C-alpha cells in the first residue's frame, strides 16, 4: 500500500514538474525562440574574421563558381572532386599567353600566368556537388571557389538556388569552342601578323 501511494505521489510530482517547465515556456514566449520567418528574415551569415589574411579560405559553402578567364585548365579540381561533378575539356593554343578575341579567350590570368590551354568546357553539376570544398584548395589560380565569404565581393552569395529543370543546375562556365574554331581564329591572327 505504501508503495502504491508512493507511486501515485511520484507520478503527480514529476508530471507537475514537467507541466511547470512547459508552462514557463508558454509564458515566456519569445525567450528561447529560434524560428526565422524565412522569406522576410534570412539566415544570418556567420560573421567571420579570422584575424589574418584569409584569401585561401572559403568558409561559406554556397554554390561553386569559376572565374573562367583565370582558369588555366590544369584539371586539378576535376581530379580532387570525390563525386566527379566537375568536367573540364581543354584545347591547346598555338601561342601561349595570347588573347584570342574571336572566341573570347584571355591569354593571361589575373595572377599573370600565361595560359597554354583554351578551356572549351567547364561544367559543374551542382546536383551532384557534395560541398566538400576539396576542389577549391588545389587551384593554383584560385579561380574556383564557393561563393560568399571572402569571395562575396566577386560573386553574390546565393543559398537558395533552385531551378525548374534539373539540367539547369549543371552550370556550364566555359563557352563551347571546337578545335576548328580555335584553329581558324589563331590562323587569322597569325596571318594578320605575318
Amino acid at each position, binding site marked *: 500500500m505504501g508503495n502504491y501511494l508512493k507511486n501515485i505521489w511520484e507520478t503527480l510530482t514529476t*508530471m507537475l514538474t514537467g*507541466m511547470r517547465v512547459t508552462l514557463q515556456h*508558454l509564458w515566456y*514566449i519569445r525567450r528561447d525562440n*529560434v524560428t526565422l520567418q524565412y522569406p522576410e528574415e534570412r539566415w544570418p551569415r556567420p560573421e567571420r574574421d579570422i584575424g589574418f589574411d584569409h584569401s585561401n579560405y572559403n568558409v561559406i559553402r554556397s554554390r561553386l563558381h569559376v572565374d573562367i578567364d583565370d582558369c588555366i585548365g590544369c584539371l586539378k579540381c576535376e581530379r580532387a572532386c570525390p563525386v566527379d561533378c566537375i568536367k573540364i575539356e581543354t584545347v591547346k593554343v598555338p601561342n601561349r599567353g595570347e588573347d584570342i578575341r574571336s572566341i573570347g579567350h584571355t591569354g593571361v590570368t589575373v595572377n599573370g600566368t600565361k595560359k597554354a590551354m583554351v578551356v572549351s568546357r567547364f561544367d559543374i553539376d551542382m546536383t551532384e556537388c557534395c560541398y566538400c570544398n576539396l576542389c577549391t584548395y588545389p587551384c593554383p589560380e584560385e579561380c574556383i571557389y564557393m561563393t560568399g565569404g571572402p569571395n562575396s565581393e566577386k560573386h553574390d552569395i546565393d543559398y537558395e538556388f533552385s531551378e525548374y529543370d534539373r539540367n539547369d543546375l549543371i552550370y556550364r562556365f566555359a563557352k563551347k569552342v571546337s578545335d576548328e574554331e580555335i584553329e581558324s581564329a589563331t590562323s587569322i591572327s597569325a596571318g594578320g601578323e605575318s
Partner: protein
Amino acid sequence: MIVDQLIDWFPTSAAWPGLTFIIVVILCAVPVFLFIAVYALVAIYGELKISSFIQDKVGPMGQGVGLHAWRWGLLQPVADALKLILKEDIIPSSADKKLFILAPFIVFIGAFIAFSALPFSQTIIIADMNIGIFYILAVSSLGVIGIILAGWSSNNKWSLYGAMRSAAQIVSYEIPAALSIVVVIMLTSTMSMQGIIQYQSGVVWGFLPNWLLFNNPFTFLAFIIFFISGVAECNRTPFDIPEAESELVAGAFTEYSGMRYAFFFLSEYANMFVVSGVAAAAFMGGWQSPIPGMFDTPGWGLFWFMSKSMFLIFMMIWFRWTFPRLRVDQLMDVCWKGFIPISLFNIFGVGIWYLIVG
C-alpha cells in the same frame, strides 16, 4: 429546452406533430454542426499556437494571398480544412468499402449527438432530459464502434492494432468516468444537467463558489479522475495509443485521407468539448458565475460555461505537449488498478461524508 420551446412555438405542431419534430430537429442540428465546425477551427488554431509556444516555436504566421491575418496565421485552420476537403479521397482497393465510408460518420455522430444535452447557459440547452448526464455517457461511447469499423475495414494491420487498442481503452475508461459521475448524482440526486448545475449555486467553505469540485475532498478526487478518464476517452496524449504516431503510424486512421480523415479530426475535437463541457457542468458549476450572485444573467452564463470548457481544453492541450505516451498495458493498469479502486472508494467516501456533514 430549446426543442420543447420550438415545438410549442410552431403553429403546425398540433396538426402535424411528426413533421414539426423533424423540422425542429434540423433547426437544432444545423447550428450545433456549425458550432462544432467553428469551435474546431478555434481549437485547432489554439492547439497549433499553444504547442508552438510551449516548444519555443512561433506557430502559423500568416496564410493566404493578401490576407496575412495580422501576421498571426489566424487563417491556418481554415487553410487546413480547405486542404482536407480538396484532397483526393482514397479508398484502399482491399478495404471493406461500405464500412470504410460509414466509419467516420459513426464516430462523428457519437460526438455530435452528445451536444444536445450540453447546457450552454441557463436557457440554451437543446434538450434538458431528466437523464441528461446518463445520456451523454451513453452516446459518447458510440464513437468506439466507428473506430473499430475504421480499423477493421481499412484492411491494414496498423489500423487493426489501433482499433483494438482504442476499443479496450475507451471501454475501460468509461467505467471510472461513470463512477465519478455517480458521486455527482449521489450529491445532487438528479441526472438532469440543469438540475446538477442548479445544485451548485451558492457558496461553500465560506468563500468558494459551491461547485462540486470544491464541495468536499472526494468530489475533488472524482473530478480529477473524471477529467483524466475523459482525456483517455478522447484518445489524447498521454493516452493516445490508438493513433500513437511513432508506433502505429496513425493507428485506426492510417488509411484515411481527405474529408474522411477530417471527420475523425473533427470528432476528436468535438469529443474534447463534450468531455470538458460535462466536467465543467458536473464539477465546475457549468454556467454558474465563479463569484456567487454576480454576472449570472444567461449571457454571462454562456460566457462562463465556454470559458470553463475552454480552460479544460487548454489543460488537455497542455498535457499533450508535456507528457510521453503510456504503453497499452500500463494504460490498462492505470485504469483498472488505479482509477477504478479509487473511484469506488470515492463513492463510499462521499456516502459517509454525506451522512456526517450532510
